């Protein structure tokens, strides 16, 4: 394994050393995003064009808990598709025909590329165009890649949302509109919608919408706020449509949520009094709810293995609002621009790492023996067996953690392993 540890040239004292490694990456691929996206967009189906491995990944990541007919599936390529004995496009058309026949409730179909489909250069964008022509207007067919050679874990959502951007209609109104980008739990979305209304931002929409027919419009009057830190490509596409990004930290914790809402409020010239009025009580409630966790967690050390790209905002929230001490904050990809506000808050003395060599990183974990290690599912039990406490990063994606009223739930996710340790006498 070729390992390069390249400290960046220091730009003043604000630029921390970053560990950059290239070795085994122990991170899911972007297909995983389907597990939450297929629940979020209620009339969309995600068809992976891939291998048995891709189908097995989805099944393993989803668990069989959500066994009710999922709105995803895999068109598994077989020897005959690769050997040219069957025309892959014809085969795909057949699979899609069968699927749409069975599921007339589907209004949007995503063809999701995988490593095998990319390596054999199966052109899914052409396939999507062809199928879209055939099935419109009943069904829109789009495509994006969730392959492991192009995307890690949450980047699948980024690619999916980016694929939606060309579908958005041109915004016609003169008035500025706010677009909140990134899949959020429905309950969180509703809370934010109420808060924006109270702040005085009237025109607010969310991407992705809950229904494919409710795509928000976009245009030069659109200002967008990222709800998730992993949306680099989507942000780029929105910018191309004339929309402007509102730089902000992410809505994790009381402080993060206020700063996030505040950035939008300022961008829309909202009345500061209205802003305080809308947020002060909720912020105070969130802080009160966090206090007992702070008493418990302050001073505890935490190590982030790279996984969801939520690591930097999480580290910021846990250090500033609960007093935890990050030892290393690893992320698969450090989006400097989108994380600029977060990095300012996090401070420059925190060790960041980007990319991964899982063996070397585990050596560092074992040497540091942090109080909590945030990691993927494959690593958690082996670390627990070594006597370390872990938190599964995937839980942070599957649980509503954004906003004021979820701040203590977020803290609770980190506190629970300690609670458990103090109870157990075995």
């Amino acid at each position, binding site marked *: 394994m070729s390992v390069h540890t390249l400290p960046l040239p220091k730009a003043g004292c604000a630029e921390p050393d970053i560990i950059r490694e290239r070795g085994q990456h122990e991170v899911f*691929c972007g297909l995983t995003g389907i597990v939450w996206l297929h629940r979020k967009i209620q009339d969309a189906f995600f068809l992976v064009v891939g291998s048995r491995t891709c189908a097995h990944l989805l099944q393993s990541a989803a668990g069989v808990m959500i066994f*009710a007919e999922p709105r995803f599936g895999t068109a598994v390529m077989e020897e005959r598709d690769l050997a040219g004995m069957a025309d892959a496009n014809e085969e795909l058309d057949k699979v899609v025909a069968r699927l749409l026949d069975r599921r007339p409730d589907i209004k949007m179909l995503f063809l999701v590329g995988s490593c095998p489909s990319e390596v054999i250069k199966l052109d899914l964008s052409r396939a999507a165009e062809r199928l879209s022509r055939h099935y419109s207007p009943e069904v829109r067919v789009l495509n994006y890649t969730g392959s492991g050679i192009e995307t890690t874990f949450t980047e699948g959502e980024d690619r999916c949302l980016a694929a939606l951007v060309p579908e958005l209609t041109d915004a016609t109104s003169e008035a500025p509109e706010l677009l909140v980008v990134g899949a959020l739990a429905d309950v969180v979305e509703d809370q934010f919608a109420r808060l924006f209304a109270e702040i005085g931002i009237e025109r607010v929409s969310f991407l992705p919408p809950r229904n494919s027919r409710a795509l928000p419009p976009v245009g030069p009057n659109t200002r967008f706020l990222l709800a998730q830190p992993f949306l680099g490509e989507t942000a780029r596409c929105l910018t191309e449509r004339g929309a402007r990004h509102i730089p902000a930290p992410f809505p994790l914790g009381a402080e993060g949520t206020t700063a996030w809402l505040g950035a939008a409020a300022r961008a829309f010239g909202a009345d500061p009094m209205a802003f305080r009025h809308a947020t002060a009580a909720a912020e105070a409630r969130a802080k009160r709810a966090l206090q007992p966790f702070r008493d418990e967690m302050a001073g505890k050390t935490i190590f982030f293995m790279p996984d969801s790209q939520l690591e930097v905002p999480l580290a910021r929230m846990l250090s500033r609002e609960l007093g935890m001490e990050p030892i290393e904050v690893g992320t698969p990809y450090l989006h400097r621009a989108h994380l600029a506000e977060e990095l300012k808050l996090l401070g420059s003395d925190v060790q960041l790492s980007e990319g991964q060599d899982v063996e070397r990183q585990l050596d560092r974990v074992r040497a540091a023996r942090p109080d909590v290690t945030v990691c993927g599912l494959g690593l958690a039990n082996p670390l627990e067996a070594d006597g370390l406490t872990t938190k599964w990063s995937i839980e942070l994606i599957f649980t509503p953690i954004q906003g004021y009223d979820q701040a203590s739930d977020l803290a609770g996710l980190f506190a629970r392993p300690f609670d458990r340790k103090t109870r157990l006498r075995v």
Partner: protein
Amino acid sequence: MQLTVWTYEGPPHVGAMRVATAMTDVHYVLHAPQGDTYADLLFTMIERREKRPPVTYTTFKARDLGSDTAALFKSTLESAHERFKPAAMLVGASCTGELIQDDPAGLAKAANLPCPVIPLELPSYQRKENWGAGETFYQIVRHLAAREGVEPVAGKPQGRVPRCNILGATALGFRHRDDVMEITKLLKENGIEVAVVAPLGASAADIARLPDADFNVLLYPEIGEQAARWLKRTYGQDYTTTVPIGVGATREFVAEVRRLAGLDALPDRSDAGRLPWFSRSVDSTYLTGKRVFVFGDATHAVAAARVATEEFGFELVGLGTYSREQARAVREAAQAHGLTALITDDYLDVEQAIAEAEPELVLGTQMERHIAKRLGIGCAVISAPVHVQDYPARYSPQMGFEGANVLWDSWVHPLVMGLEEHLLGMFREDFEFSDTAKPSHLGPGQRVSEAPAAEPALRPLAEEGPIRIWSADAEAELKKIPFFVRGKARKNTERFAAERGLAEITLETLYDAKAHFAR
């Protein structure tokens, strides 16, 4: 291309991982993209292993393609060897690795490592997990147990205790660990020594010792048979053909191993666990003729069909497997019961077959558990793939006499108990006996409704026959029949009415049909 939602088997390299993880000192280097590392969680989460699988993935990316993926493979191999110092290494590719054709075997050879390196060719677009496990184990045995100029061992030396190996158990197997313990005990009781268990718990050196045993006990043919055949061909070691699941099969297994070990046959053995007596106890009369549907890997499905009919007195109404490679044995067993075997790896087909067979008990995998839950039918798990709850903390083998005790407990548990069944039938109007109530011994709770409203089924509607009109009193009477036989009663009555061209089903029709179908 095949549309797949849930799969019974993973890709073949996951089978190879099951073998590597089962062993103590081999390491597997897999040419694969980062997402494929998900497979680690199968072992650390589902099986709750305390160690990561001994697998290093190259995790190549798009930008590596065409430039230096081969170099990446080579450096990954070298550094994995350096770090883990395994006694032997496996090298191969996942589905994507296979497409980029970097030739891991050739690269590994060129790396010239100071340990045996075993190349694996596992065609991802043709084969699946069990085949991958079998092939991997075979390659390991061929590479590590090969000896120069050794004559086949014919017969053991006089005076030595007979000795066998146990083949086929892997990581992530359904009860493999406990089966191995139980069978080891059984062999010991019969005066047979177990030399090597492989791959589960074996080292590379243990594999090299395989030829020293007198014969092989093959517990999981899906995984161990290819290796067992090679050992027979090469060293003249016989292997067992009976899989000891159930009392009858365990008795036959004991007879077989005693014959292979050159021991006298035992007189009829009375110590066969509790199943024979429990099944003969009067309390168990209610099990007679319970309709059971069996689906799983071939070995477990065939065994369960036999045990269900011969040892529980159930009626087999369906039998199938997801394993096409082993379909023949399942077809034969099904035929013996007058059934057509269901050979499919599409769980929607299985769901439809179960719904049509209207069983009272399903013996299957985790997929069938979910299907049964949706249909409101009891279910016990008898075969991989299984979920975390099927790796129990307690000792619970499937094989041997203790295994038969476990089968008894776990198959009877989901059923409605004898007298309770009568009371349900007699007092249908008792509100606590509502259809949604679970059997009382399964605790409070509700049956899952048959069709989740928000999720239309991903399958064409079953063909609708001409719908007969039910009179109100017949419909009401039908509701008095317990839910677990009501579907059958409804169908039989409708068939009866259709055959006679009756336009309406009255109370009379219902009881005429009942009399007609009573045996």
